[in-house]
């Protein structure tokens, strides 16, 4: 379970990106975080994987309490959650196979297990034919699939996707969200920050709307209105 209590994030330049947000996300939920550019979506999501720390308030993800967590525990939190980025963040000098395997190597998994699991997830995202390609030899959609495969290879309980379709065409975006929904069907919690109206409206899930740094809507099956 994910809990945020009275979470506020103020940057060093004085801008308050998130103001007093309270929310709870249960295991196995699929949640959209929506809002206009600059609303604070990314700040909220980045706090969940400890890229940013709240100025005040508490965040808990399962047994990880951010307020008491030591820096050395951060890698273990990040192994507990999978992260998909808008710009994919693949290691440029590693092949598709190696990029996905890297996430398992850091948890010191045995080679045989790595091989089986990496091939399995690459099959799941439809990239089993491109194992030896490097990221710059792939299309944006394919790179995002690798990013998704890497995020789920360790079977995380939570998957955080920060604008995963931001750089993709509508058809590829659909395919990526398809994959995320399939992952969610296997009881992984999925939190997806997006401003893609079509996806949010067509594939309805719980919706958290951020505006001016505040949580202004928390609605099950909500749709994008005419907010922007």
């Amino acid at each position, binding site marked *: 379970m994910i809990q945020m209590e009275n979470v506020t994030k103020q940057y060093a330049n004085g801008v308050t990106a998130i103001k007093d947000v309270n929310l709870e996300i249960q295991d196995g939920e699929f949640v959209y975080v929506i809002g206009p550019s600059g609303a604070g979506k990314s700040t909220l999501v980045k706090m969940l*994987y*400890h*890229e940013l720390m709240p100025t005040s308030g508490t965040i808990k993800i399962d047994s990880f309490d951010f307020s008491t967590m030591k*820096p*050395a525990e*951060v*890698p*273990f*939190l*990040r*192994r507990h959650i999978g*992260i998909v*980025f808008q710009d994919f*963040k*693949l*290691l*440029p*000098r590693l092949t598709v196979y190696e990029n996905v395997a*890297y*996430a398992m*190597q*850091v*948890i*010191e998994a*045995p*080679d045989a297990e790595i091989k089986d699991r990496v091939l399995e997830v690459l099959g799941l995202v439809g990239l089993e034919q491109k194992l030896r390609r490097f990221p710059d030899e792939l299309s944006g959609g394919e790179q995002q699939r690798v990013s998704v495969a*890497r995020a789920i290879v*360790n079977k995380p309980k939570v998957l955080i996707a920060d604008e995963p379709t931001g750089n993709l065409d509508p058809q590829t975006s659909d395919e990526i969200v398809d994959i995320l929904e399939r992952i969610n069907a296997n009881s992984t919690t999925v939190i997806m920050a997006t401003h893609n109206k079509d996806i949010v409206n067509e594939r309805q899930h719980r919706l958290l709307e951020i505006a001016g740094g505040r949580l202004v809507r928390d609605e099950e099956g909500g749709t994008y209105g005419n907010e922007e």
Partner: protein
Amino acid sequence: MKSKVFFRHVKDSLRSLRRNGWMSVAAVSAVTVTLLLVGIFMALIFNLHHISQQVENDVQVRVYIDKKTTVKQRDELKNKLKKLDHVNKVTYRSRQQELDTIIGGYGSQWRMFSGDQNPLSDVYMVKTTSPKATITVSKEAQKLDHVVDASYGGRTAKKLFNSVDLAQKWGLGFTILLLFVAVFLINNTIRITILSRSDEIRIMRLVGATNSYIRWPFLLEGAWTGLFGAILPIIVVDVGYAVVYHSFSMANGASGYSLYANMPFLFWLDLMLAGIGIVIGALGSVISMRRFLKF
């Protein structure tokens, strides 16, 4: 760390070195140039020290014996010289041997002084336990009977001692300076390659790699860069030194001065070059990436 994980790091570091292409070539080249300079100067400085020690040890006291001295008196003088403090060895050289040396060094025209015309004295060559003891030993020897004069080269020897002292101090200073320059240059090159890969380090952290897991391949990659960068300098210094050693031996064989023999000198020099490359490469990597590993 498990050995399996360590070997994975070794494999990853070599793969990364290969895939970084020109960046790796640039880093290895920078190490090569630096270590080449270090290798040449080290060989030069060590041998300067070696030769200066030989020159220093060659300084002896010449005790000139009165021409009227009998053989028995001469033997007594030898015993007295041997009993002086700091005296190591006393060798007799006849006036004819002295003349032969002059003829050998300055030419046959000196032959006209052979036989009764020889103006030189018989001498005792006194070797002291330390070069600087020649001054006191020569003073003591002058006080003995049947000694016309005793010299240790006087101002020349003092100058030599000062020059040797100075050369050794400068040599040491220059070596330290050169090592600092090597550390600075290699470290800077490695730092630039790490800076260009700061995004990679960030991604590794985001997928849950611990700092030590990220650090190891970079540390090993730095060490490989240092080691590969040392190969060419080792070859050049080894081949160059063998040529110089041969030429020096041919030219200075008669003088008795020599450079360090190829082995084990080159073995230690090579080991030092490889060691400097590896240590500075590895440390440079770890130090450069420190700032990217803070939470």
